[in-house]
Structure formats: C-alpha cells, structure tokens
C-alpha cells in the first residue's frame, strides 16, 4: 500500500532523513521510535503530505502521495488536535460536515440529524457519551485525545497517523488509551503509524516496530548525515536481548547491567 523509495529529506543544509526504503501493507500497525529530533515527525509529515521528500518517491497505491492533507489520512497530534471552540459533540459532527461538499462547514436539517447519530455512536465507542456538551478545555488530557481519535475516525481515513498521541498523558491512564486504539484499529481495519518515545508502548502496541537512528556521524558537521530506519522488526520476533539493546540506546542508565531493581549504594 505505501512504498518509500530511497527517500531523503533535507532542511536547507541539514539532512534529517536519508535512504528510507520501506513498504507497508494495508492493515499494519507500525510504531516508530527513536531519539528526539531524529526525524520521526518529519516522516509522518511526509505521509500526511505537508512535507515532501527532497529526493526519492513516496507512493500510496503506487501513485505519488498527494502533497496536501486529505481524508485518506487521518492524524492525531500530541496537542491541538481538537477544535477548542466546539463542544465534544460539535467536534465530532464537524468531521461529518467537512466530509460533505459545502461552503460554510455547517450542517442543517436531515444531514445534521444523521451526523448527530453517527457522532453519538462513535463517542459511545470511545467512552465520551457522558461529556458531549463539554468544551475541550473542560476535558482531561486523556479525554481530549479520545475525542481527537474519534474525530479522526469519522473522517473514514485509510491511514491513521499518530504523533506521540499519549506523550502528554499521565502514565496512569495510558493503558486505557492503548486498549482503545487497538480496538479501533481492529474494528476499522486501519493502517496505523504511531510515533512514541516510549519503547515499551511501541513494543506493546504495534505489529511492526521501526527504530530511527543515525548510522553515520561526522563530528565536524553534525547535520551532514540524517537518520534512517536502523531496525524494522516484526513484533513477536524480537528477543529480550535485542529489546534491551534498543532500550539502552534510547534510555541509557548508569549501571546498564542492573538497570532497575538493584538499589545502588550511595554512601
């Protein structure tokens, strides 16, 4: 479904991504991890169409991908993914309104009633039925992201892009969100790309894990080389030692051989 052919991405002199060659099938759930600033969001932006590769081709169904956002590709960002001036219900109904041709983006009459029904249904599904008249700023972070996901799904995208969707959430409530995303992924048969900074999360959720990293370094010119996909792992085929190797690369600790349980003696 999606194919990247030797993609490079530069901003001015800075190479952000290089030699990206991948191919993703319909229905896969890809999680992307990597150090901060290595280009994960940039890759998602190319999938979304708001950035273009500097060289190389990014194909969707063997066609160059559209270079502006459209309803094929839904997105949930870490922040600002819902419309702050609409209630929960309006946010979701707006997704329906935008899907219709029209000038104002407002719905009337039967179309409005239909949208309402559909919206209530999906809000039920994401567990927001009790909060439909609230504004986003009255929601907790978790509820806000549920709303963003519900909204994105109403656009009926084939591909769902998630850029650290739970990065701002309290770890205590993430498990629920994971469950939700997995349920929806199964129900709607989506292709999902999800960036996360938490290897455990990426590992637990995806069917396929990509690790972004720089393989070449020039100490004189740190921006001369970009990151690429150093691991492309089908989940379930990763053994513990590889997991720990990647984890250490992402979250080094001082005593790498006894990373957690052992108490260091300070004095």
């Amino acid at each position, binding site marked *: 479904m999606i194919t990247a052919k030797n993609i490079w991405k530069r901003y001015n002199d800075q190479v952000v991504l290089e030699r990206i060659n991948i191919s993703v099938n319909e229905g896969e759930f890809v999680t992307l991890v990597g150090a901060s600033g290595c280009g994960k969001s940039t890759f998602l932006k190319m999938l*979304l169409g*708001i950035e273009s590769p500097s060289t190389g081709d990014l194909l969707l169904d063997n066609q160059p991908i559209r270079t*502006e*956002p*459209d*309803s094929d*590709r*839904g*997105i949930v*960002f870490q*922040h*600002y*993914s*819902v*419309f*702050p*001036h*609409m209630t929960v219900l309006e946010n979701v109904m*707006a*997704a329906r*309104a*935008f*899907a*219709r*041709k*029209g*000038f*104002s*983006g*407002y719905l009337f009459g039967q179309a409005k009633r239909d949208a309402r029904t559909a919206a209530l249904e999906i809000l039920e599904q994401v567990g927001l039925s009790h909060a439909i008249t609230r*504004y*986003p*700023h009255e929601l907790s972070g978790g509820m806000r992201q549920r709303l*963003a996901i519900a*909204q*994105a799904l*109403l*656009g009926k*995208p084939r591909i769902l892009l998630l850029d650290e969707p739970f990065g701002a959430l309290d770890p205590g409530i993430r498990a629920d969100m994971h469950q939700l995303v997995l349920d929806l992924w199964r129900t709607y048969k989506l292709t999902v790309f999800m960036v996360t900074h938490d290897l455990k999360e990426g590992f637990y959720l995806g069917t396929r894990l990509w690790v972004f990293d720089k393989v070449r370094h020039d100490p004189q010119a740190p921006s001369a080389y970009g990151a690429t996909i150093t691991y492309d792992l089908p989940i379930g085929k990763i053994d513990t030692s590889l997991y720990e190797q990647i984890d250490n690369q992402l979250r080094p600790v001082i005593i790498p051989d006894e990373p957690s349980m052992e108490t260091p003696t300070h004095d």
Partner: protein
Amino acid sequence: MKRILNIKPSRFSALCLGLLPLLICVVIYMIASDLRLEANPNDKLLPSFSQMGEAWSRMALTPNVRTGEYIFWVDTWSSLQRLLLGMLIAASVGLLIGLLTGALPLMGATFSPLITVLSLIPPLALLPILFIVFGLGELSKVALIAIGITPFIARDIQRRTQEIPIEQLIKAQTLGANTAQVLIRVLLPQLMPKLLDAVRLSLGAGWLFLIAAEAIASTDGLGYRIFLVRRYMSMDVILPYVAWITCLAFILDQVLALLSRKLFPWHVKGGH
C-alpha cells in the same frame, strides 16, 4: 518581616488601597480649586464640584429652551452611535482582511505591505481628503474612526490567525474540509474573542478619532461640545464631559469583556 515582594494585601485592604489614590486626587483637586476660586471667584480653570454639578444639571436635566432637547444626552447618544458604528465597521473589515491575509499565504503576501503602510499613516493628517470623499455627514466621522482603527485590527487579527495552531488546519483538511470551510468553521469562530480583545484595545484610539472628527464637522456629540465650549474655557462643562467619556469608555470596555466571557466560554486565556 517578609520581603515587600511577598506581601499580598487581602481583598478588602486591596480595595481600600486602590481607592486611596483616587480619593487623594479628588481632595487635591478640591483644595486647588478652592484656592483659585478664593483668589478669583470668576476663575474658570478649576471649577468647584458644585459649579460642575450645576453645569451638568443644566445640560442633562433641563430641556434646552430652543429645541427642547436634553443636550447632554443628545450628545452622548450621537457620539455613541458614531463610535459604535465606526468600531463595528473597523471590526468587520479588519476581521475580514485579517482572516484572509492571515490564513491564505497568497493574500498575505499581496496585502500585508499595503496594510503596514496604511497603519503607519496618521489619519488625522488626512482629514481633509476624508471629508471630501465621505462628505460631511455622519459618514465622515464614522469613516475616520473606521479608517483609523481598521489597520490595527486587521494586523492584530492577521497575527492571531497565524497563531492558531497549524495542527487544526491540517486536522480539518484530513477530515475533508475545503478552504472556505476551514476559514468559516475553524478559524472565524476562534478569532471572534480575539476580535473583541482587539476592539477593546483600540477603543481608546476610537474615542480620540471621534473627538477629533466631531471637533471639525458636527453639530452635536461629546467631542463637539467640548470643542465648542473650549473657546470660553468653560471647564465646568469640559470636566464633567471628560469624566463622562472616561466613564463611558470604562463601561464599554467592561461590557465587551463580559460579552467575550459569555459568548465564548471555550476561550480560556493562554489556550491549552
């Protein structure tokens, strides 16, 4: 003893403290006025409060012998009409220009330089031309306010539009929205409270232009009256008028603030 930096007055003492300087000003005025009137009972510069009260009641409570109108209220009503109409026009036009130039890069590139130039021109210097284009009726006064304020509002709204997270525009587009839908459904409503803020900020300038315009071509209005009696230095009329304008400005400001809170409950300062 705490550092003075850390001493916070209670609500009640804050209120008292806040009233203190205002009271002091009033007392100082009364003393100065008494001293001058003592020296010269005909002095017009600092009339006593009772003189001002008389002048005010003459204008506000006694019908004018010739026209039967209550001058003070007629002036107030005329000025408010002009001010509100002018601000309304400035707000609408400014909103439209700001939205389009802020949201559409093509429009922004085309009109931003023009707006920048226009915003730098002091409108008072252009008054003669204005009167010729818009005539001398109500229109020209309203036009001066509108022309003076619009560039400010347009630039402010333009900046505000650009501050709206790009994520929202992208999100709307991934839901299938076209340009018009993004403008009308996503951006416009979010700009409304910002527009009210911009209007509040520019009300002071609005009053200035109103007074300036009324001074030149008018037969009523608060600015007209001040200008008219200024020749005789009738401070007993001018001061109540100035106080009244200050008061009106305060009320308008508060009303707009209230309106913003009521109409846009989702608008929280600082966003989320």
